């Protein structure tokens, strides 16, 4: 039975505050929902709770110290964040990175993409309402990857392993076997997720045709990464502007068709398969050799009046570093272009007109890291 309210029956929209301390906001994110019954009429995001001024801190520190701050912006994919930063410093200092260091960097970045996407799969499962199985599965696979990172860098999250010019130290002797070992369990983990979620009736009902964003809107809003590709835009910086040795690697860029929450999930799952294939190709080409340039200046001083904008494809999209040097051993200006900030801008457009319960999974499907949004 449908009850229609009389035209003169006045109703009031309800304001719901979500966050900043709320488990579904993936960090300290606050949004104010204006709802009419079950339908979201407006959504006002509030960010900035985790703002630490990483850019200002970098401007007051040596070029080599900046690596540590970059870790803390994108803590679920620190290798990718470090990569942009060291590439920016290398571009200005005109440092030639040895081949072996580049291949190891590529392997670590792709492994980090896997661990980051596992984190997404687990957390997203919780958002959708399947707490338990996927979350624990994701944690099991991510644990194996993080153990590997720990063996290499000594740290589980903030690696600080990349250096301008190469790597901090050589990887352990059993690096290749360990990576291959981890990839076996990763493959199995991806299959498990595919079986658990991709064709699950309830999961499909929750995610299909929810939070749709068109390709035009996604580009207009500056979205990037899997969230953009889910809308059918095949933009992947590894393909369009290859850095390191991505031009020598054979891989595909999976794209979605609808731009809904389900596509954003599926694009990430398919992307993980590509990452595994990239890592295997990198391992075949990994040779012995130095990991730092032979002539490394003891004090890194960059030329005056130079600037560069480096962009790389991090798990969440385009992670850009805009570095301006005016001589000396400190950056004059360092701007972190955060993929999550630009993706989060689209949240309002995605959520308005949807159900309240879906607003949470739409937020989950963007896969935000608040410390990258706020920096």
């Amino acid at each position, binding site marked *: 039975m449908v009850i229609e309210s009389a035209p003169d029956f006045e109703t009031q929209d309800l304001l719901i505050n979500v966050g900043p301390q709320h488990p579904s906001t993936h960090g300290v994110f606050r949004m104010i929902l204006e709802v009419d019954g079950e339908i979201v009429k407006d959504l006002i995001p509030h*960010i*900035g709770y985790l*703002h630490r*001024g990483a*850019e*200002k801190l970098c401007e*007051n520190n040596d070029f080599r110290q900046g690596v540590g701050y970059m870790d803390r912006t994108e803590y679920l994919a620190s290798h990718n964040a470090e990569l942009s930063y060291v590439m920016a410093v290398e*571009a*200005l200092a005109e440092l030639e990175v040895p081949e072996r260091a580049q291949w190891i960097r590529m392997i670590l970045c792709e492994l980090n993409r896997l661990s980051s996407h596992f984190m997404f799969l687990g957390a997203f499962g919780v958002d959708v309402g399947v707490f338990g199985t996927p979350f624990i599965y994701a944690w099991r696979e991510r644990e194996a990857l993080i153990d590997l990172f720990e063996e290499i860098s000594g740290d589980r999250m903030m690696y600080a392993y990349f250096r301008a010019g190469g790597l901090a130290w050589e990887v352990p002797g059993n690096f290749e076997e360990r990576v291959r070992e981890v990839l076996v369990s990763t493959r199995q983990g991806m299959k498990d997720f595919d079986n658990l979620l991709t064709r699950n009736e309830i999961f499909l009902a929750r995610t299909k045709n929810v939070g749709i964003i068109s390709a035009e809107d996604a*580009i*207009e*809003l*500056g979205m990037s990464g899997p969230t953009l590709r889910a809308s059918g*835009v095949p*933009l992947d910086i590894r393909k*369009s*502007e290859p850095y390191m040795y991505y031009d020598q690697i054979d891989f595909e860029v999976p794209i979605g068709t609808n731009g809904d929450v389900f596509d954003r999930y599926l694009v990430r799952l398919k992307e993980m398969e590509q990452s595994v294939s990239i890592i295997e190709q990198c391992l075949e080409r990994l040779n012995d050799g130095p990991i730092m340039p032979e002539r490394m200046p003891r004090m890194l001083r960059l030329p005056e009046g*130079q*600037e*560069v*904008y*480096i*962009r790389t494809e991090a798990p969440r999209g*385009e992670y*850009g570093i*805009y570095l*301006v040097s005016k001589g000396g051993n400190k950056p*004059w*200006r360092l*701007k972190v*272009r955060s993929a999550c*900030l*630009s993706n*989060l*801008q689209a949240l309002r457009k995605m959520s308005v007109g949807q159900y309240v319960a879906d607003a949470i999974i739409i937020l989950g499907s963007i896969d935000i890291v608040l410390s990258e949004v*706020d*920096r």
Partner: protein
Amino acid sequence: MTSDENVDTTNGEEASEIAVVDSLEDTIWPLINRVLSSVDVTPERGSIDLITQIPRSDIIRALQILKDNEEVQFNYLRCLTAVDNESEGVDVVYHLYSIPKNINLTVKVNLPVDDKTIGTATEVWEAANWLERETAEMFGITFNNHPDPRTLLMPEDMTDTFPLLKSHPFAEIEILQGELLGYDRENQGDDE
């Protein structure tokens, strides 16, 4: 007034200007020069991308041309930020990307220290909305006609101090938060 100044400097350094333009033949500068023929543009070679200086009075019109023109189609705003050059004013920097053509362009606008106002790029790309809010609160730049001129990362009431300016001391935020953090206000040289 600023556009007049820019014209003066280009006339004064005409010889070196031509040399710079000649050396940019291998970049996308000839294309950009043709597209932006109605705007006063000064090119410069960057480490990776071409950098162009555009006077403040023409900036939004120029960005709209760059977006709409069929030959370049800069439909994606990668990044928008500012750089404080102390006495030389503040540079607002736009990093543009064209998805169909796969080309990049950096656009810079110089704002004088005493008048940090500029038009809003939200008219051109929606992506500029939050990026401009952040730039505004960090550098004290006013983006005219911005649809949502609230603070983004900073507290709502913190609209009189701009952390990313070079004149802003490194520890100013801690001082503002009070003595709880153990800061000795007397010895910080805080004039306020």
